[in-house]
């Protein structure tokens, strides 16, 4: 009987400890929601930045290719002028 009282008291004390620590001065649920939203916004921005960097790389590659096309077109124009001269 005495042991039963001791065990019950132990469980009560455990519950009280949990309650006490839970009631300490932590952030409110609104504040926690604010933190979650901030985290989500940061993740989203990271993805946007990655996508923009990928687009930038693609455009730079396309520009390099276009410059080569332009050089080829200008060379072809030069050759065409020479051929037309030789036709005369």
């Amino acid at each position: 009987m005495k042991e039963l009282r001791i065990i019950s008291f132990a469980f009560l004390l455990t519950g009280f400890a949990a309650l006490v620590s839970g009631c300490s001065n932590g952030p409110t649920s609104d504040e926690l929601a604010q933190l979650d939203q901030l985290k989500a916004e940061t993740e989203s921005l990271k993805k946007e930045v990655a996508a923009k960097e990928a687009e930038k790389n693609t455009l730079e590659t396309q520009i390099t290719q276009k410059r080569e096309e332009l050089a080829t077109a200008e060379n072809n124009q030069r050759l065409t002028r020479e051929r037309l001269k030789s036709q005369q």
Partner: protein
Amino acid sequence: MKPKVLSLIILLFLTAAAANAQEKLSKEEWQKQISQYTSERDNLKSELAVLTRQVDSLRSTLASLDKQVQSVRNETLALTGASEVVRKEFEARLLALEQRVAALLSLSDQDLFVHRFELDSAQATKDRLMKERIAAAERYFERLQNIQSKLDNLRATLANVKSTAEAEQHYVVRSWAKYRDCLWNISKKKQVYDSPFLWPKIWQANRDQIKDPDLLRIGEHLKIPPQGSLTTAEKAAERRYWSKKHA
């Protein structure tokens, strides 16, 4: 209460308190994270703004380069003085010539020999196209060069076929009584095929003279085609010969 039991109770109390405290964020930790993520967010926004400006600038550069390329190409075509109608008409003639040359390339050597005059005609067409101003444009010049290369290859093939045809031998049939001249024995001769089994070649090459392969006339001039294995037609003729013989 026994000391041991009391110690156990205190231990349980502390463990529960600690466990529960760890599950929840402290105000200080929350504040720290808020500052950290706010700073990171602001940096990312700045970075995104810079990248967006850079991407817009690159898009603009790409569009400008594209216009320049088109402009140079149009100028090049304009140098030839060809209108759109003339250009289309020239393209149609060029395409027709390319198709004629492709058809010649698909012929066997023997068929090419038969159609050898078409090679000259294709060459003449190519030369006429080459003289037109519009042919100076790179896109057409390259295609005409390609056609010339194919025509040169066809001529080389034709030259080989011609020399082979010109090297064809002839054999004059002599009497059976003295020389045992028959298709089998003629084929067997060293100066002919050195193999009697190629006699159908001689027979088929001389169908206009040899009605019956078993009957040769003295003095007949037989064409001896170039040595090689029996063609499908020659094998078929031989099979028909033996079928009739055994019938």
